[in-house]
Protein backbone atom coordinates (compact mmCIF):
# COMPACT_ATOMS: atom_id res chain seq x y z
CA UNK A 1 0.00 0.00 0.00
CA UNK A 2 3.01 2.31 -0.46
CA UNK A 3 1.28 4.12 -3.32
CA UNK A 4 -1.58 5.32 -1.07
CA UNK A 5 -1.68 9.04 -0.27
CA UNK A 6 -3.80 11.05 2.13
CA UNK A 7 -5.46 14.48 2.17
CA UNK A 8 -6.04 16.97 4.98
CA UNK A 9 -9.77 16.41 4.49
CA UNK A 10 -9.21 12.77 5.55
CA UNK A 11 -9.53 11.09 2.16
CA UNK A 12 -7.20 8.33 0.97
CA UNK A 13 -6.24 7.95 -2.69
CA UNK A 14 -4.66 4.96 -4.38
CA UNK A 15 -3.27 5.38 -7.89
CA UNK A 16 -3.07 2.52 -10.41
CA UNK A 17 -2.02 3.72 -13.86
CA UNK A 18 -4.12 6.83 -14.41
CA UNK A 19 -7.08 5.58 -12.34
CA UNK A 20 -7.33 6.70 -8.71
CA UNK A 21 -9.53 5.01 -6.11
CA UNK A 22 -10.71 7.36 -3.38
CA UNK A 23 -12.30 6.80 0.00
CA UNK A 24 -12.33 8.23 3.52
CA UNK A 25 -9.86 7.23 6.21
CA UNK A 26 -10.48 5.09 9.28
CA UNK A 27 -9.70 8.16 11.37
CA UNK A 28 -12.48 10.05 9.53
CA UNK A 29 -15.01 7.30 10.27
CA UNK A 30 -14.04 7.34 13.93
CA UNK A 31 -14.66 11.08 14.10
CA UNK A 32 -17.97 10.80 12.25
CA UNK A 33 -19.41 7.89 14.22
CA UNK A 34 -21.98 5.54 12.70
CA UNK A 35 -22.41 6.39 9.02
CA UNK A 36 -26.02 5.96 7.92
CA UNK A 37 -26.08 7.68 4.52
CA UNK A 38 -23.70 8.07 1.58
CA UNK A 39 -24.09 10.06 -1.63
CA UNK A 40 -21.58 9.66 -4.47
CA UNK A 41 -20.75 11.69 -7.59
CA UNK A 42 -22.37 10.68 -10.88
CA UNK A 43 -20.48 8.40 -13.19
CA UNK A 44 -19.17 10.38 -16.16
CA UNK A 45 -19.12 13.67 -14.26
CA UNK A 46 -15.96 15.69 -13.75
CA UNK A 47 -14.74 16.68 -10.31
CA UNK A 48 -12.16 19.32 -9.42
CA UNK A 49 -9.35 19.00 -6.87
CA UNK A 50 -10.58 20.00 -3.38
CA UNK A 51 -14.19 20.24 -4.62
CA UNK A 52 -17.06 18.29 -3.06
CA UNK A 53 -17.63 14.86 -4.58
CA UNK A 54 -20.10 13.31 -2.18
CA UNK A 55 -21.70 13.39 1.23
CA UNK A 56 -21.65 11.11 4.25
CA UNK A 57 -24.05 11.43 7.14
CA UNK A 58 -23.89 10.04 10.63
CA UNK A 59 -26.89 9.97 12.94
CA UNK A 60 -25.68 13.39 14.12
CA UNK A 61 -24.71 15.41 11.04
CA UNK A 62 -23.85 15.59 7.35
CA UNK A 63 -20.28 16.01 6.09
CA UNK A 64 -18.99 16.68 2.60
CA UNK A 65 -16.56 14.32 0.94
CA UNK A 66 -13.89 16.13 -1.10
CA UNK A 67 -11.78 14.86 -3.95
CA UNK A 68 -8.04 15.33 -3.45
CA UNK A 69 -7.38 15.33 -7.24
CA UNK A 70 -9.27 16.32 -10.42
CA UNK A 71 -10.66 13.85 -12.93
CA UNK A 72 -13.58 12.07 -14.53
CA UNK A 73 -15.65 9.73 -12.37
CA UNK A 74 -15.34 6.30 -13.99
CA UNK A 75 -16.86 4.15 -11.23
CA UNK A 76 -18.75 4.49 -7.93
CA UNK A 77 -19.27 1.99 -5.14
CA UNK A 78 -23.02 1.29 -4.98
CA UNK A 79 -22.48 -1.14 -2.07
CA UNK A 80 -21.79 1.70 0.38
CA UNK A 81 -24.89 3.56 -0.79
CA UNK A 82 -27.04 0.47 -0.16
CA UNK A 83 -25.38 -0.28 3.19
CA UNK A 84 -23.50 2.76 4.55
CA UNK A 85 -22.43 0.85 7.69
CA UNK A 86 -19.82 -0.86 5.46
CA UNK A 87 -17.90 2.44 5.52
CA UNK A 88 -17.36 2.06 9.27
CA UNK A 89 -16.41 -1.59 8.89
CA UNK A 90 -13.78 -1.39 6.13
CA UNK A 91 -13.16 2.25 5.19
CA UNK A 92 -9.72 1.94 3.62
CA UNK A 93 -10.40 -1.08 1.46
CA UNK A 94 -13.76 -2.50 0.26
CA UNK A 95 -15.69 0.64 1.21
CA UNK A 96 -14.02 2.88 -1.39
CA UNK A 97 -16.21 5.75 -2.69
CA UNK A 98 -15.34 6.46 -6.33
CA UNK A 99 -12.70 5.97 -9.03
CA UNK A 100 -11.33 8.81 -11.13
CA UNK A 101 -9.48 8.91 -14.41
CA UNK A 102 -7.09 11.61 -13.31
CA UNK A 103 -5.92 14.54 -15.38
CA UNK A 104 -2.75 15.63 -13.71
CA UNK A 105 -0.58 13.24 -11.72
CA UNK A 106 1.32 16.16 -10.19
CA UNK A 107 -1.76 16.92 -8.07
CA UNK A 108 -0.72 13.87 -6.04
CA UNK A 109 2.54 15.52 -5.01
CA UNK A 110 1.08 17.79 -2.36
CA UNK A 111 -0.68 14.91 -0.56
CA UNK A 112 0.63 13.19 2.55
CA UNK A 113 2.14 9.73 2.92
CA UNK A 114 0.89 7.38 5.63
CA UNK A 115 3.31 8.47 8.35
CA UNK A 116 2.65 12.16 7.78
CA UNK A 117 -1.11 11.60 7.71
CA UNK A 118 -1.11 9.57 10.93
CA UNK A 119 0.81 12.39 12.60
CA UNK A 120 -1.59 14.98 11.15
CA UNK A 121 -4.65 12.97 12.25
CA UNK A 122 -3.29 12.65 15.79
CA UNK A 123 -2.61 16.39 16.01
CA UNK A 124 -6.02 17.42 14.69
CA UNK A 125 -7.78 15.18 17.22
CA UNK A 126 -5.81 16.45 20.20
Amino acid at each position, binding site marked *: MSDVKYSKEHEWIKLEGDVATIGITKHATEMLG*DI*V*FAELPEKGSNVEKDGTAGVVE*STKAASDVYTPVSGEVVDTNQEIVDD*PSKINQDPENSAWFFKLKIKDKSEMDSLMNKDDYDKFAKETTA
Partner: protein
Amino acid sequence: MEIKKTSLYQLHQDSNAKFVEFAGYQMPIQYSEGIVEEHKFTRNHSGIFDVSHMGQLFIYGDNKLIEDLEKIFPLDLKNLKLNHSKYSFLMDQDAGIQDDLIITKINEGFLIILNAACKDNDFKILKELLNDKYKMVLDENRSLIAIQGPKSSQILNEVISGVKDLNFMSGNWFLFDNQKVYITRSGYTGEDGFEISISNDFADKLTRELIKKGSKLVGLGARDTLRLEAGLCLYGHDLDKNKTPVEANLKWAISKERISKGDFIGSDIIIKQLNDGVSKIRVGIKPEGRIIAREKTKIFNQSDVHIGEITSGTFGPSVNGPVAMGYVENKFSKKDTKVFLEVRGKKHAANICSLPFYKKSYVKGTN
Protein backbone atom coordinates in the same frame (compact mmCIF):
# COMPACT_ATOMS: atom_id res chain seq x y z
CA MET B 1 -19.90 30.93 32.54
CA GLU B 2 -18.32 27.75 33.76
CA ILE B 3 -19.60 24.55 32.21
CA LYS B 4 -21.43 22.42 34.76
CA LYS B 5 -20.79 18.74 35.29
CA THR B 6 -23.24 16.15 36.59
CA SER B 7 -22.50 13.70 39.41
CA LEU B 8 -21.92 10.98 36.81
CA TYR B 9 -19.12 12.91 35.06
CA GLN B 10 -16.38 10.61 36.37
CA LEU B 11 -18.37 7.53 35.34
CA HIS B 12 -18.89 8.99 31.85
CA GLN B 13 -15.14 9.53 31.59
CA ASP B 14 -14.41 6.01 32.82
CA SER B 15 -16.82 4.77 30.12
CA ASN B 16 -14.99 6.63 27.29
CA ALA B 17 -17.77 9.12 26.69
CA LYS B 18 -17.48 11.69 23.95
CA PHE B 19 -18.68 14.92 25.52
CA VAL B 20 -20.70 17.79 24.12
CA GLU B 21 -21.85 21.00 25.75
CA PHE B 22 -25.61 20.97 26.17
CA ALA B 23 -27.59 23.68 27.97
CA GLY B 24 -24.49 24.69 29.93
CA TYR B 25 -23.60 21.13 30.96
CA GLN B 26 -20.84 18.82 29.83
CA MET B 27 -22.91 15.83 28.69
CA PRO B 28 -22.06 12.50 27.02
CA ILE B 29 -23.21 12.42 23.39
CA GLN B 30 -22.10 8.81 22.99
CA TYR B 31 -19.80 6.14 24.43
CA SER B 32 -17.38 3.81 22.62
CA GLU B 33 -20.00 1.57 21.00
CA GLY B 34 -21.67 4.44 19.19
CA ILE B 35 -25.16 5.83 18.75
CA VAL B 36 -26.63 3.00 16.66
CA GLU B 37 -25.52 0.26 19.07
CA GLU B 38 -26.63 2.28 22.11
CA HIS B 39 -30.01 2.88 20.49
CA LYS B 40 -30.53 -0.80 19.68
CA PHE B 41 -29.36 -1.91 23.12
CA THR B 42 -32.00 0.34 24.69
CA ARG B 43 -34.74 -1.07 22.45
CA ASN B 44 -33.70 -4.68 23.06
CA HIS B 45 -32.25 -4.64 26.59
CA SER B 46 -31.77 -1.65 28.87
CA GLY B 47 -30.05 1.74 28.60
CA ILE B 48 -29.13 4.23 31.33
CA PHE B 49 -29.36 7.96 30.58
CA ASP B 50 -27.88 10.72 32.71
CA VAL B 51 -30.56 13.40 32.56
CA SER B 52 -29.34 15.22 35.67
CA HIS B 53 -29.12 18.45 33.67
CA MET B 54 -32.92 18.57 33.65
CA GLY B 55 -34.64 20.67 36.28
CA GLN B 56 -36.27 19.05 39.32
CA LEU B 57 -38.59 21.67 40.71
CA PHE B 58 -40.33 20.95 43.99
CA ILE B 59 -43.25 23.25 44.84
CA TYR B 60 -44.66 22.83 48.33
CA GLY B 61 -48.27 23.58 49.15
CA ASP B 62 -51.81 22.21 49.58
CA ASN B 63 -55.21 22.84 47.98
CA LYS B 64 -54.51 26.53 47.39
CA LEU B 65 -51.44 25.55 45.38
CA ILE B 66 -53.55 23.19 43.27
CA GLU B 67 -55.92 26.03 42.48
CA ASP B 68 -53.08 28.37 41.59
CA LEU B 69 -51.32 25.81 39.39
CA GLU B 70 -54.56 25.17 37.51
CA LYS B 71 -54.45 28.81 36.45
CA ILE B 72 -51.10 28.01 34.81
CA PHE B 73 -51.28 24.44 33.50
CA PRO B 74 -54.13 23.05 31.35
CA LEU B 75 -54.51 20.06 33.65
CA ASP B 76 -57.19 18.68 35.95
CA LEU B 77 -54.84 18.81 38.95
CA LYS B 78 -57.67 18.53 41.51
CA ASN B 79 -58.23 14.98 40.33
CA LEU B 80 -54.58 14.06 39.88
CA LYS B 81 -53.98 11.22 42.31
CA LEU B 82 -51.03 11.13 44.70
CA ASN B 83 -47.88 9.94 42.89
CA HIS B 84 -49.43 10.21 39.44
CA SER B 85 -47.79 12.17 36.62
CA LYS B 86 -49.02 14.17 33.64
CA TYR B 87 -47.29 15.59 30.58
CA SER B 88 -47.95 19.31 30.20
CA PHE B 89 -46.49 22.66 29.14
CA LEU B 90 -45.83 26.13 30.43
CA MET B 91 -47.50 28.56 28.02
CA ASP B 92 -47.50 32.32 27.55
CA GLN B 93 -50.67 34.42 27.03
CA ASP B 94 -50.63 33.54 23.31
CA ALA B 95 -50.42 29.82 24.16
CA GLY B 96 -46.82 29.77 22.90
CA ILE B 97 -44.93 26.93 24.56
CA GLN B 98 -42.21 28.15 26.96
CA ASP B 99 -41.36 24.61 28.03
CA ASP B 100 -42.80 21.11 28.06
CA LEU B 101 -42.68 19.20 31.33
CA ILE B 102 -43.84 16.31 33.50
CA ILE B 103 -45.71 17.20 36.68
CA THR B 104 -46.19 14.68 39.49
CA LYS B 105 -48.39 15.00 42.59
CA ILE B 106 -46.34 14.26 45.67
CA ASN B 107 -47.31 14.34 49.31
CA GLU B 108 -45.98 17.81 50.02
CA GLY B 109 -47.03 19.39 46.71
CA PHE B 110 -45.73 18.83 43.20
CA LEU B 111 -42.53 17.74 41.48
CA ILE B 112 -42.05 19.21 38.00
CA ILE B 113 -39.36 17.95 35.62
CA LEU B 114 -38.19 20.76 33.30
CA ASN B 115 -35.91 20.99 30.29
CA ALA B 116 -32.32 21.94 31.14
CA ALA B 117 -32.18 24.93 28.83
CA CYS B 118 -35.48 26.33 30.16
CA LYS B 119 -35.36 25.51 33.87
CA ASP B 120 -33.98 28.80 35.24
CA ASN B 121 -36.41 30.86 33.18
CA ASP B 122 -39.30 28.53 34.10
CA PHE B 123 -38.46 28.99 37.77
CA LYS B 124 -38.61 32.78 37.40
CA ILE B 125 -41.89 32.67 35.49
CA LEU B 126 -43.55 30.29 37.97
CA LYS B 127 -42.31 32.20 41.00
CA GLU B 128 -43.85 35.35 39.58
CA LEU B 129 -47.11 33.68 38.53
CA LEU B 130 -47.45 32.13 41.99
CA ASN B 131 -46.68 35.51 43.62
CA ASP B 132 -43.92 33.95 45.68
CA LYS B 133 -46.56 32.36 47.93
CA TYR B 134 -45.08 28.87 47.99
CA LYS B 135 -41.73 27.36 48.81
CA MET B 136 -40.09 26.45 45.49
CA VAL B 137 -36.85 24.49 45.19
CA LEU B 138 -35.07 23.90 41.91
CA ASP B 139 -33.05 21.10 43.42
CA GLU B 140 -29.41 21.05 42.30
CA ASN B 141 -28.59 18.43 44.93
CA ARG B 142 -30.45 15.66 43.17
CA SER B 143 -29.46 13.77 40.03
CA LEU B 144 -31.93 12.31 37.56
CA ILE B 145 -31.14 8.92 36.07
CA ALA B 146 -33.39 7.30 33.46
CA ILE B 147 -33.32 3.58 32.77
CA GLN B 148 -35.19 2.58 29.63
CA GLY B 149 -35.90 -0.58 27.66
CA PRO B 150 -37.61 -3.94 28.10
CA LYS B 151 -35.11 -5.37 30.64
CA SER B 152 -35.06 -2.22 32.78
CA SER B 153 -37.88 -3.22 35.12
CA GLN B 154 -36.16 -6.47 36.05
CA ILE B 155 -32.73 -4.83 36.38
CA LEU B 156 -33.88 -1.90 38.51
CA ASN B 157 -36.05 -4.16 40.64
CA GLU B 158 -32.97 -6.25 41.53
CA VAL B 159 -31.36 -3.09 42.94
CA ILE B 160 -34.47 -1.38 44.33
CA SER B 161 -37.10 -3.93 45.18
CA GLY B 162 -40.72 -3.08 44.40
CA VAL B 163 -40.28 -0.73 41.45
CA LYS B 164 -41.61 -3.33 39.03
CA ASP B 165 -45.09 -2.84 40.51
CA LEU B 166 -45.27 0.84 39.54
CA ASN B 167 -47.76 1.69 36.80
CA PHE B 168 -46.92 3.82 33.78
CA MET B 169 -46.91 7.55 34.64
CA SER B 170 -46.92 6.97 38.37
CA GLY B 171 -44.23 7.01 41.02
CA ASN B 172 -43.28 6.56 44.66
CA TRP B 173 -40.49 6.92 47.20
CA PHE B 174 -38.11 3.98 47.57
CA LEU B 175 -34.91 3.35 49.49
CA PHE B 176 -31.46 2.90 48.00
CA ASP B 177 -28.60 2.58 50.46
CA ASN B 178 -30.89 4.11 53.11
CA GLN B 179 -31.41 7.15 50.86
CA LYS B 180 -34.87 8.25 49.82
CA VAL B 181 -35.18 8.09 46.03
CA TYR B 182 -38.25 9.12 44.05
CA ILE B 183 -38.91 6.84 41.10
CA THR B 184 -41.51 7.27 38.36
CA ARG B 185 -42.35 4.79 35.61
CA SER B 186 -41.80 7.08 32.65
CA GLY B 187 -39.27 8.12 30.10
CA TYR B 188 -38.73 9.59 26.68
CA THR B 189 -37.65 6.73 24.45
CA GLY B 190 -40.90 4.94 23.62
CA GLU B 191 -39.82 2.06 25.86
CA ASP B 192 -40.92 0.91 29.27
CA GLY B 193 -38.67 2.51 31.86
CA PHE B 194 -38.10 4.61 34.96
CA GLU B 195 -36.72 7.97 36.01
CA ILE B 196 -34.91 8.03 39.34
CA SER B 197 -34.44 11.20 41.36
CA ILE B 198 -31.56 10.55 43.74
CA SER B 199 -29.20 12.56 45.92
CA ASN B 200 -26.05 13.54 43.97
CA ASP B 201 -23.80 11.66 46.41
CA PHE B 202 -25.44 8.33 45.59
CA ALA B 203 -26.06 8.70 41.82
CA ASP B 204 -22.72 7.22 40.82
CA LYS B 205 -23.11 4.19 43.12
CA LEU B 206 -26.65 3.44 41.88
CA THR B 207 -25.66 3.75 38.24
CA ARG B 208 -22.65 1.46 38.63
CA GLU B 209 -24.92 -1.16 40.24
CA LEU B 210 -27.36 -0.95 37.34
CA ILE B 211 -24.46 -1.45 34.92
CA LYS B 212 -23.34 -4.49 36.94
CA LYS B 213 -26.83 -5.96 36.50
CA GLY B 214 -26.59 -5.66 32.71
CA SER B 215 -27.75 -2.18 31.75
CA LYS B 216 -25.45 0.11 29.72
CA LEU B 217 -24.84 3.85 29.57
CA VAL B 218 -26.45 5.55 26.57
CA GLY B 219 -25.65 9.09 25.42
CA LEU B 220 -27.70 12.04 24.25
CA GLY B 221 -27.17 11.01 20.61
CA ALA B 222 -29.19 7.82 21.01
CA ARG B 223 -31.65 9.60 23.29
CA ASP B 224 -32.44 11.82 20.29
CA THR B 225 -32.89 8.97 17.78
CA LEU B 226 -35.00 7.02 20.31
CA ARG B 227 -37.34 9.92 21.11
CA LEU B 228 -37.74 10.84 17.45
CA GLU B 229 -38.66 7.27 16.49
CA ALA B 230 -41.17 7.38 19.35
CA GLY B 231 -42.66 10.59 17.88
CA LEU B 232 -41.79 12.66 20.97
CA CYS B 233 -40.99 16.37 20.76
CA LEU B 234 -37.70 18.04 21.65
CA TYR B 235 -38.05 21.52 23.09
CA GLY B 236 -36.19 24.20 21.14
CA HIS B 237 -36.70 22.21 17.95
CA ASP B 238 -40.18 20.72 17.64
CA LEU B 239 -41.62 23.02 20.29
CA ASP B 240 -40.94 26.68 21.04
CA LYS B 241 -42.62 29.99 21.88
CA ASN B 242 -43.95 30.35 18.32
CA LYS B 243 -45.89 27.09 18.51
CA THR B 244 -48.98 26.22 20.53
CA PRO B 245 -49.92 22.80 21.92
CA VAL B 246 -52.71 22.56 19.34
CA GLU B 247 -50.29 23.28 16.50
CA ALA B 248 -47.87 20.80 18.04
CA ASN B 249 -50.61 18.16 17.85
CA LEU B 250 -50.48 17.74 21.62
CA LYS B 251 -54.11 18.55 22.37
CA TRP B 252 -54.47 15.12 23.99
CA ALA B 253 -52.44 16.55 26.88
CA ILE B 254 -54.96 19.35 27.55
CA SER B 255 -57.72 18.46 29.99
CA LYS B 256 -61.20 18.61 28.38
CA GLU B 257 -62.64 19.71 31.70
CA ARG B 258 -60.27 22.66 31.83
CA ILE B 259 -61.02 23.66 28.23
CA SER B 260 -64.71 23.88 29.07
CA LYS B 261 -63.85 26.33 31.87
CA GLY B 262 -61.13 28.13 29.90
CA ASP B 263 -59.41 29.74 32.87
CA PHE B 264 -55.73 29.01 32.34
CA ILE B 265 -52.95 31.06 30.71
CA GLY B 266 -53.30 30.81 26.94
CA SER B 267 -56.78 29.27 27.11
CA ASP B 268 -58.35 31.88 24.79
CA ILE B 269 -56.02 30.95 21.96
CA ILE B 270 -56.27 27.21 22.68
CA ILE B 271 -60.08 27.30 22.58
CA LYS B 272 -60.07 29.40 19.41
CA GLN B 273 -57.66 26.99 17.70
CA LEU B 274 -59.65 23.94 18.81
CA ASN B 275 -62.83 25.47 17.36
CA ASP B 276 -61.48 27.13 14.21
CA GLY B 277 -58.53 24.88 13.42
CA VAL B 278 -54.88 25.86 12.97
CA SER B 279 -52.94 26.97 9.91
CA LYS B 280 -49.87 24.80 10.61
CA ILE B 281 -49.59 21.49 12.44
CA ARG B 282 -46.89 19.04 13.52
CA VAL B 283 -46.73 15.80 11.51
CA GLY B 284 -44.50 12.78 11.05
CA ILE B 285 -42.59 12.69 7.75
CA LYS B 286 -41.07 9.60 6.18
CA PRO B 287 -38.63 10.17 3.28
CA GLU B 288 -39.05 7.56 0.53
CA GLY B 289 -35.36 6.85 0.02
CA ARG B 290 -32.42 6.97 2.41
CA ILE B 291 -32.03 10.76 2.33
CA ILE B 292 -31.89 12.36 5.78
CA ALA B 293 -33.82 15.62 6.08
CA ARG B 294 -32.54 17.57 9.07
CA GLU B 295 -33.96 20.46 11.05
CA LYS B 296 -34.82 23.54 8.88
CA THR B 297 -35.22 21.45 5.69
CA LYS B 298 -37.93 23.07 3.55
CA ILE B 299 -41.05 21.07 2.72
CA PHE B 300 -42.86 21.53 -0.63
CA ASN B 301 -46.17 20.21 -1.97
CA GLN B 302 -46.65 18.46 -5.35
CA SER B 303 -47.04 21.85 -7.07
CA ASP B 304 -43.65 22.95 -5.69
CA VAL B 305 -45.17 25.39 -3.20
CA HIS B 306 -43.33 25.82 0.11
CA ILE B 307 -45.67 24.42 2.80
CA GLY B 308 -43.51 23.92 5.87
CA GLU B 309 -40.27 22.96 7.57
CA ILE B 310 -38.66 19.98 9.25
CA THR B 311 -38.01 20.51 12.98
CA SER B 312 -36.23 17.20 13.73
CA GLY B 313 -34.80 14.66 11.34
CA THR B 314 -32.32 11.84 11.61
CA PHE B 315 -31.69 8.20 10.80
CA GLY B 316 -33.81 5.86 12.91
CA PRO B 317 -31.79 2.73 13.73
CA SER B 318 -34.86 0.62 14.66
CA VAL B 319 -36.84 1.83 11.66
CA ASN B 320 -33.64 1.30 9.62
CA GLY B 321 -34.28 4.43 7.62
CA PRO B 322 -34.67 8.17 7.83
CA VAL B 323 -37.37 9.67 10.08
CA ALA B 324 -38.46 13.26 10.59
CA MET B 325 -41.11 15.51 12.00
CA GLY B 326 -42.04 19.04 11.13
CA TYR B 327 -44.80 21.57 10.63
CA VAL B 328 -46.85 21.82 7.43
CA GLU B 329 -49.89 23.82 6.39
CA ASN B 330 -52.89 22.07 7.84
CA LYS B 331 -54.43 21.10 4.49
CA PHE B 332 -51.31 19.05 3.66
CA SER B 333 -51.21 17.25 7.00
CA LYS B 334 -53.27 14.17 6.10
CA LYS B 335 -51.56 10.81 6.36
CA ASP B 336 -50.01 9.61 3.06
CA THR B 337 -49.90 13.12 1.54
CA LYS B 338 -46.93 13.23 -0.80
CA VAL B 339 -44.46 16.05 -0.10
CA PHE B 340 -40.94 16.98 -1.23
CA LEU B 341 -37.96 17.79 0.98
CA GLU B 342 -35.21 20.06 -0.28
CA VAL B 343 -31.84 18.63 0.74
CA ARG B 344 -28.63 20.10 -0.72
CA GLY B 345 -30.56 21.75 -3.54
CA LYS B 346 -32.46 18.65 -4.67
CA LYS B 347 -36.08 17.73 -3.92
CA HIS B 348 -36.70 14.30 -2.46
CA ALA B 349 -40.09 12.56 -2.18
CA ALA B 350 -41.52 11.86 1.27
CA ASN B 351 -44.88 11.06 2.83
CA ILE B 352 -46.79 12.50 5.76
CA CYS B 353 -47.20 9.66 8.24
CA SER B 354 -48.70 8.99 11.64
CA LEU B 355 -46.49 8.98 14.72
CA PRO B 356 -44.78 7.14 16.30
CA PHE B 357 -42.41 5.60 13.75
CA TYR B 358 -41.66 2.90 16.28
CA LYS B 359 -44.42 1.37 18.35
CA LYS B 360 -44.34 1.92 22.09
CA SER B 361 -44.24 -0.87 24.60
CA TYR B 362 -45.24 0.94 27.80
CA VAL B 363 -46.56 -0.99 30.75
CA LYS B 364 -50.21 -0.11 31.12
CA GLY B 365 -51.60 0.65 34.54
CA THR B 366 -54.74 -0.83 36.02
CA ASN B 367 -55.77 2.17 38.11
